[in-house]
């Protein structure tokens, strides 16, 4: 049992790195990631868990990090946008967004890329409907979603092509 406290010691893995911290129980996970861990790629866009700019992957699930508390990261494996491109090499999803102009101001982009990454891990051949639904929780005010959907479709196709080539 983790005993009641307004401060908690936690251990977790972030983008593959195991680490620990002491957190205020009330701190939102997104602020823990941004302010405490100093990782600025996860963004805050609203205060009702509506916009998805804070989306990360926790224990393999896509979540809004503003809707979790820092102590809930204890024992968890967290993936943020920074963990996707190792050594600066863009993943197929990121590359597809670049080619299809799936981003303009870039503020929703980390959350959208995490959502797209989660979708394609679970469902490598999504339908158009499934792609739309996968980013339903990510508000974008710049692109009108058109190129976001195209980017995800292109990423799915590129990954399929890679798999076929490898086979």
């Amino acid at each position, binding site marked *: *049992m983790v005993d*009641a406290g*307004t401060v908690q010691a936690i251990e977790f893995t972030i983008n593959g790195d195991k680490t620990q911290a002491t957190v205020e129980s009330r701190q939102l996970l997104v602020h823990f990631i941004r302010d405490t861990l100093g990782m600025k790629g996860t963004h*805050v866009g609203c205060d*009702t868990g509506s916009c998805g700019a804070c989306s990360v992957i926790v224990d393999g699930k896509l979540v809004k990090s503003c809707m*979790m*508390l820092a*102590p809930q990261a204890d024992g968890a494996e967290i993936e943020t946008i920074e963990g996707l491109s190792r050594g600066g090499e863009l993943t197929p999803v990121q590359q597809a967004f670049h080619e299809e102009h799936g981003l303009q101001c870039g503020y929703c982009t980390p959350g959208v890329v995490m959502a797209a990454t989660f979708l394609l891990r679970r469902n490598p051949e999504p339908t158009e409907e499934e792609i739309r*639904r996968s980013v339903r*929780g990510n508000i974008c005010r710049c692109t009108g979603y058109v190129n976001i959907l195209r980017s995800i479709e292109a990423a799915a196709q590129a990954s399929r092509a890679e798999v076929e080539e490898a086979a």
Partner: protein
Amino acid sequence: MLLESVAYARPDTVAEALEALASSDGAAPLAGGQSLVNVLKHRVASVELLVDISRLEELRQIARGSDGGLEIGACVTYDELDRSEEIRSSHPLLAEVASHIEDQQIRDRGTIGGNCCLSDPTNNLPPLLVALDATMVIESASGRREVPAADFFHGYFATAVGEGELLRSITVPPLAADAGAGYSTVAVGGDSKAIARAAAMVRGNGTIQDARVVLACVSPTPMRHGGMEEALRGAEATMEAVQAAAEQIGDDLEPLGDAHGSADYRRAMARVVARRAVCQAMVKGGN
């Protein structure tokens, strides 16, 4: 956006959770947090101790009962409801409704128990569970008790779960062979907040033997419309009969108006969604 100071605890068992909840007046269970965290961000309610139950395996099971019904742990997430073979095979509408709750992120954390215990009139699952005649299993240090879904919801944020208690699971009885369930919503936008909603269960081939018509969004809690149910019982299972039965819904309703819909509109829409939900239930029941 930023929470008041709050204590956090994470018990390893339901027993520990109950103890923690009983330890303080201001204690509340934290399941998926997809509603509670918003409440805390906007400081509309004060909680002194959050008891994190989201990882309790005991509360995350989906089990098939010997009668063909389902026992669903309170901390089963919407995504798990959507992807459960068990649920899809016997209660596909439950999986379908869960799959359209807001978005993937919310579905990955939000729980069936949380959806019920928040008891917001626009929530997706309460009216369906009432229509399906579900039973809510509540646990406390002194044992378990069962409350029919129809009696579980008392008002916004108020349910039959009392101090020192926890919603443990929800039992959904099997649908009879000649029964079907239906659900209809008018929402602000795609998979978004409901303006009007109805859930229905209809039993009988050719003639309606039994019907449960549950309206959401027109009162603080899901409301069974006795008048429409009465008009349906014994009626022919046709669109016209359902249309006529829906006329029973009218000025008996006193919905609240807000930015998304006036009282008049909600009343009119209640009739429409009730009719649509019942028709859908009839079609699913083989009519």
